[in-house]
């Protein structure tokens, strides 16, 4: 399984795999850090790559590949406001889109971590029932202090 091959074989993603966290916009990158021991397999700006083909879809932002012993785990990252409960419904819609899109690609075969990072101040904490519901659907919520890979 080579991430580069699988990205290039995915419609509209060919040639979009960037080194390290290179696909992330600077403001979004500030929410993602990595341990010195973490080796990155590259990143893709999914939102940008699929905009021409799916302009009105609730597209997910990015993914980042991380080497884990003999495999690569894909971290699907959405940097999105968390300032009101309305944001939860938006992320739910994006997640629904992600699942449906992902299963049409070879990327579905990778172990994964689906993460929503709050882009600013949070209006809810980890005990919020909607955050629990998202977790039970496979989504990890992170405050703007972010995700460490």
């Amino acid at each position, binding site marked *: 399984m080579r991430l580069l091959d699988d990205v290039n074989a995915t419609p509209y993603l060919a040639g979009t795999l960037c080194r390290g966290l290179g696909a992330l916009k600077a403001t979004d990158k500030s929410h993602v850090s990595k341990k010195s021991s973490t080796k990155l397999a590259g990143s893709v700006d999914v939102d940008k790559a699929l905009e021409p083909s799916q302009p009105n879809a609730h597209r997910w932002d990015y993914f980042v590949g991380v080497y884990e012993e003999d495999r690569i785990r894909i971290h699907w990252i959405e940097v999105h406001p968390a300032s009101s409960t309305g944001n939860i419904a938006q992320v*739910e819609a994006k*997640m*629904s889109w992600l*699942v*449906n899109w*992902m*299963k049409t690609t070879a990327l*579905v075969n990778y*172990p*994964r*971590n*689906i993460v929503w990072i*709050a882009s*600013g*101040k*949070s209006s*809810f*904490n*980890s*005990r919020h029932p909607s*955050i*629990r519901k*998202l*977790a*039970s*659907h*496979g*989504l*990890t*919520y992170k*405050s*703007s*202090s972010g995700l460490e890979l």
Partner: protein
Amino acid sequence: MNRLTLKNVAQIKEADLKFGDLTVLVGPQASGKSITLQWVKLLQDTGLIQKQMHTYGLDYDGSLPEFLDVYFGEGMRSIWQDGSEVKVDGKLIDVGKRIGRQQVEKSETTFLMPAQRVLALPEGWPKPFQGYRAGDPYTVRAFSDGLRILMDREFTGAGALFPKQNRLKKDYRDLLQQTVFGGFELATHKVQSQKRLVLSSEGGKLPFMVWSAGQREFVPLLLGLYWLMPPSKTTRRNEIEWVIIEELEMGLHPRAISTVLLLVLELMTRGYRVCLSTHSPQVLELVWALETLRKHGGDANDLLDLFGVKHSSPLRQMAGEAVRKVSKVYYFEPNGIARDITELDPSSEEAQEATWGGLLEFSARANETVAKVVSNSPEFATGDLFAGER
């Protein structure tokens, strides 16, 4: 007192607390929260405490170590060490000198409901001050004796103590009935001339030992609240300004905790300054909401929505005042430092603030664990998890 600073007292290296109308202390066991709250009481009511000890034959010979063993409890003289320091509003207190001399006795200004309050009602009746061992903490003895005085003076006859028409607003009584007492009423009952508190219903009378854990914990708290909210037009009891409640959540279901928190707001709107220690995220959720409402123009209706209670006129009036009150939260770290985490910002770079002094750590990890397993399951990959929601 607006500020209390403790340095090198017991396990506390430094705690510099600026009090709000509501001040909440959080932190792991044995991090110094209870000791700090007992210092608040001691510094406010020194003369009264000394007099009470003298009256009941507790002789500490003007010695600070002996006083500490009597006040904080057996073996607690060790909390005062070389380099120990107490400041009130920035002014250094000579604790040895203060304890060595009888201070002027004034009316009680600080009412402390200790974590061990269930011990105040052995056999279902308040135990007097002298009923305790000399090594038992003063705050437990004083609270217990206060309940005894309340029962002697204000509940002399038989009959219901709860619900009782002139005690607490009807809204609170209804909520307590639903969340704590169920179909029972709290009443005084005599067995061979010995009075005791019972929970009574048509089915009979239940003595203290068969009450639920939450009921046993709550009844001493209820009696304390009766003391603080007298059945007259005066809103406060005598000269009392401060109310300290340790771990109000003990034994209670979250709905009952909500009711008790409403009563805490009632205390605040009556002009009491309230200090709490807690291990309950629900208490911090109240502070989080209160501070947000205060800073962003929230009103009484918003606050009552938080509690999910009806918007009656008395509750609206109470909530209208409560949303203007200032809260503070301090986290007592295991390393002995107390930190101001009032913002309770879930996005804070500071892990202890983001996890509310560790109270949210487990819930965050539970979410992450569940999400990780679900997102890697076959049901996720096929989209079946979302099938019913599209």
